[in-house]
């Protein structure tokens, strides 16, 4: 079965939401990304798998402009991101949601204020409308009952949900997930994966999921890419990965 047959959204491949070409990044003498090429279409979800410390998170941070690449190109909806000054970069960032590994909720703000934060900065909607929107967002991730709690008062899984609601606040076209299920128990991980899948279907977003959780990646993704030594070893469906003869890929997939 071809990718297009499996996932109709993948047909939009010719107009990529994110396109990365020959991306290189080093920290001192350590090369983290050594020529990465990746294309993600609107509505498609690509998971990037690999061992810890292989530069998966760095790739996401380069796409959102938190770090600058040494060389290579990153295009978001056809617009080059590398070398942009802060103002145009911020315009692009408004179209991208980012879920951090530890959720990175603002400690001093309640759950509601965390989700309202991007809205308060970037939309001129009246207070009442904003509250309504925050309630909707929190309801979509099943957190509508904890609006007045501080991040320290909720569990790790709940923090991820709130982080996801905050990432969705500005109605992004693209979502970047940095280890969405890291540190969570298998049941909560499965819940988060289902939530990600459901939201993607509802909103037709392009998503890049960086993870080392193979089961979760299989659930949420249209395509998977395995990263090793700063390069993408293989890219394709889960079946393609299973058929790979590459020793590292076979080792990585283990019993799956």
């Amino acid at each position, binding site marked *: 079965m071809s990718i297009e047959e499996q996932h109709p959204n993948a047909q939009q491949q010719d107009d990529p939401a994110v396109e990365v070409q020959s991306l290189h990044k080093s920290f001192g003498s350590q090369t983290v990304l050594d020529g990465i090429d990746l294309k993600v279409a609107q509505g498609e979800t690509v998971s990037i798998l690999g061992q810890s410390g292989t530069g998966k998170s760095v790739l996401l941070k380069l796409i959102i402009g*938190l770090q600058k690449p040494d060389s290579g190109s990153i295009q978001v909806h056809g617009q080059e991101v590398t070398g942009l000054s802060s103002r145009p970069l911020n315009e692009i960032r408004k179209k991208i949601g980012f879920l951090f590994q530890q959720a990175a909720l*603002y400690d001093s703000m309640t759950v509601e204020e965390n989700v309202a934060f*991007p809205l308060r900065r970037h939309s001129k909607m009246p207070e009442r409308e904003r509250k309504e929107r925050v309630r909707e967002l929190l309801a979509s991730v099943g957190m509508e009952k904890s609006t007045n709690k501080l991040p320290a008062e909720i569990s790790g899984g709940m923090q991820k949900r709130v982080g996801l609601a905050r990432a969705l606040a500005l109605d992004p076209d693209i979502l970047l997930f940095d280890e969405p299920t890291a540190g969570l128990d298998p049941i909560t991980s499965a819940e988060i994966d289902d939530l990600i899948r459901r939201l993607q279907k509802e909103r037709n977003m392009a998503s890049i999921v960086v993870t080392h959780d193979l089961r979760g990646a299989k659930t949420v993704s249209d395509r998977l890419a395995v990263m090793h030594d700063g390069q993408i070893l293989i890219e394709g469906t889960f079946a393609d990965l299973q058929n790979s003869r590459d020793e590292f890929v076979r080792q990585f997939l283990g019993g799956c």
Partner: protein
Amino acid sequence: MAHWIFTLAIAAVTSGDLSTALQPSLPRPKNVLVSFFEWFGDLGIFMGRLISAMFVPPYEGREFLHQFDELGAKSLPLVALAGAATGVVVTLSTHDSLVRFGAKSFLPAVVVFSILKESGPIITALVVSGRAAAGIGAELGAMKVTEQIDAMEVSAVNPYRFLVATRVMACILMLPLLTLAADFCGIVMGWVANTLSEPISLRLFIFDGFKNVAFSDFLPSTLKTMVFGLIIGVISCFQGMRATGGTQGVERAATSAVVVASLFVILADVLLVRLIIQFFP
């Protein structure tokens, strides 16, 4: 001796921990020097970002007011107490000397001049650098290591505008106000300490004390605390924003914020006192 002072200064700005400078196994001079200059280079870049965030709209009025309350209003009791204690100490310590020289009647003037011109401003700055710089260093450091500052950036909000500029502005504007509170408490408690041993009316104490005070005695020394506020705000935010490495990084950020801010406040005071004498003789 000069070598030791130099080493202490370098260790203070590079690690923020003076004990490092006193350890027998000193880092190699080249590395220390490199990190010393790197620190100033990073501070320059930080200042550039801060200035562009501070003067270009939109302004974060709400967050500024919050910080003004958080850093200013909540430092007030501490500053008032420190000012009061200073007033008592200045009175007690000068009383005997003045009696010995037969100049007891100058006591109110000595207390008022001492507090207005130096003790009030420097005590306020040191108390604030202890309280606010530690708070800011730890808060921003924790936000940095838990990726909250990155989260702010990906939300297309400039953390230099939202977090740094508001705190630095709050520090600059609150220091002179807090100094007034310290001055007031110091003078009143100076009178109390005086009147306990030799009763004198508050009115007479104030009259004698302020008889020869001109605005040029009071204004420059009070307004110089804005520079102290700038130093405290900038150094503490800078140390917080460059924190790395988990809870240890936060601890280092908080410690170095206090140590470096206090050290720079004292060094700046030397320069400012000289300038004030030069321009307001």
